[in-house]
């Protein structure tokens, strides 16, 4: 009888283990977030946030000291005005942390949100605007000495996955629930909202009195900030995930079907023919020294000069979903499910160093 009981117990334990393993439970299940200061790269990767020295790719610290399943990090970390690091957890414990960039020690935290932190906060001076997937925009004043730095909230509804943008007056937020919000940060009220045809996973871009937003509705829209009317719509072949970047009146962005576009910000007409390199483009591009750097799901880093074909700078192992980041004379790439967690390239695309998959 004892044997039977043991067999039954083991069978149920196996069932539990299988269900846990098969189910996409909240353990490191998505691509990493990346940010960099002048000397250090910060990688939000699953159960840890890593600080990696830019000069040689050595690990400086890892947070938390004892990683567990409750804290999951994958949003891009951001810096406060005094250089502290802000990063939120998407695990069962959804705390927003402020870390000392030198040591990785926690200097402040906020645990009052009801859901995950997927969007990176926007820092404007001492004020931090942090949208959560619970549908609330949390506003903190980092100049307040006390632990309670929350100065207000704006209940918007919807799920926020993208970092907000600002034109200096209003705050713009995009939600998976197809909505674009303009919020008055002083009054903490919604000024207007516009509904688009698809979910919006990428950040909006505010420039020249317009807000540029890409969505799963296979369009990039330009919304007049003053009138909140859609000024023009640029159709795309695939869904738009990452937001666009703007340079000299040209908007650059890619889609999930692998097309890369350059369009005029004034009228939404093509500034050059779209190109289709080698895989889905999720990450927002990076503008660098007159060139646009973008990455594809197939692991290729491309550079593009307007009007020319994209140039393959480097092919890496893994899928490139995280937006590339520049720091000093390096381009930082964080592959997902690849040989390395972080790769530093020089401006010609030659590898300077890499940080291995296995954490040191």
């Amino acid at each position, binding site marked *: 009888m004892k044997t039977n009981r043991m067999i039954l117990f083991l069978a149920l334990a196996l069932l539990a283990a299988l*269900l846990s393993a098969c189910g996409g439970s909240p353990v490191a299940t998505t691509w990493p977030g990346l940010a960099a200061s002048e000397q250090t790269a910060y990688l939000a990767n699953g159960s840890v946030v890593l600080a990696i020295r830019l000069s040689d790719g050595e690990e400086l610290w890892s947070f938390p000291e004892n990683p567990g399943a409750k804290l999951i990090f994958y949003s891009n970390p951001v810096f406060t005005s005094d250089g502290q690091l802000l990063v939120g957890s998407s695990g069962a414990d959804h705390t927003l942390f402020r870390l000392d960039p030198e040591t990785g020690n926690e200097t402040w935290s906020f645990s009052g949100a009801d859901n995950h932190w997927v969007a990176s906060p926007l820092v404007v001076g001492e004020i931090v605007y942090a949208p959560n997937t619970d549908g609330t925009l949390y506003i903190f004043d980092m100049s307040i000495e006390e632990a309670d730095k929350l100065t207000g909230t704006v209940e918007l509804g919807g799920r926020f996955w993208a970092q907000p943008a600002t034109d200096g007056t209003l705050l713009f937020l995009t939600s998976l629930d197809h909505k674009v919000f303009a919020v008055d940060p002083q009054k903490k009220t919604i000024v207007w909202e516009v509904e688009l045809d698809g979910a919006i*996973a990428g950040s909006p871009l505010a420039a020249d009195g317009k807000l540029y937003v890409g969505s799963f509705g296979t369009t990039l829209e330009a919304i007049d900030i003053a009138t909140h009317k859609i000024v023009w719509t640029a159709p795309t072949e695939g869904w738009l995930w990452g937001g666009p970047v703007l340079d000299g009146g040209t908007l650059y962005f890619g889609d999930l079907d692998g097309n890369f576009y350059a369009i005029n910000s004034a009228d939404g007409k093509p500034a050059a023919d779209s190109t289709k390199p080698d895989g889905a483009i999720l990450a927002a591009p990076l503008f660098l020294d007159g060139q646009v750097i973008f990455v594809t799901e197939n692991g290729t880093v491309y550079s593009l000069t307007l009007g020319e074909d994209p140039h393959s700078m480097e092919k890496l192992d893994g899928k490139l979903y995280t937006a590339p980041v520049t720091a000093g004379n390096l381009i930082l790439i964080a592959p997902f499910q690849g040989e390395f967690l972080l790769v530093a390239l020089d401006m010609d695309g030659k590898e300077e160093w890499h940080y291995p998959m296995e954490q040191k």
Partner: protein
Amino acid sequence: MSPWDIFVSIFVNTLLWIYNLIGQNFGVAIILFTILIKVLTWPLNASQLKSAKAMQDMQNDKDWQAIQKKYAKDKEKLAQEQMRVYKEKGINPFSSCLPTLIQLPVIFALYQSITRSLASTPLALLQLTRSIGSFLDVSALIPLNSRFLWMDLGLPEGILIPGMNISFLPNGIPSLAIIVALTTYIQTKLTTPPTANPNDQSAAMSKMMSVYMPLLLGWFALTFPSGLAVYFITSNLLGIAQYAMMGRANWRGLLPGGNKPAAAK
């Protein structure tokens, strides 16, 4: 895409098709999808129940008890004799567990389809977009409305009571986990026929199941997205209804000592 991914994709598409059909309520979609699965696996469940009953009856059979006594010290011979009796009575000893084994992948796929549909991480959303058929207007469907009654189906459930802060229950009172454990217990008890044989191994196993299963599924409901708990509760209630409709529910099993057969008059 691996064969398993294709299998899960079929579930995801069916679930989302129902979700779209009924006006985008994911909780109701899970309930209807569970009913659909139960209807499709009804013959399997019925045959499992029939076989389990036959095996149970066998424990009280005089021939069976005689060979247990006779070959108690010769395991090999006992096994041979048991197989002979099974053959004579037309019972397949594996037919009671085979339906359960067949249903296991269905449970895994259903669980994955619920978590995949809710797409709570960027990677999950990317995978979802690639597993939905063209017959669905994906851009209009995403994101799924995960609110159902008081729950977010993508998160573990709990009812927060103001002023009540229990450190090991950060989500509040896990009402769904309690209902899951309770309905699992009731279902197990109802399906355990009374037995008079103190050496009845299958009855002892059933007794153990009635303790382990509610705890296991209750723990799943406590820690996994509440959409899974909705599935468990619906499935348990349908299971109870099925046993009752087949006239095999042992209602006395719910009472303390109710699994002993009624005394002969």
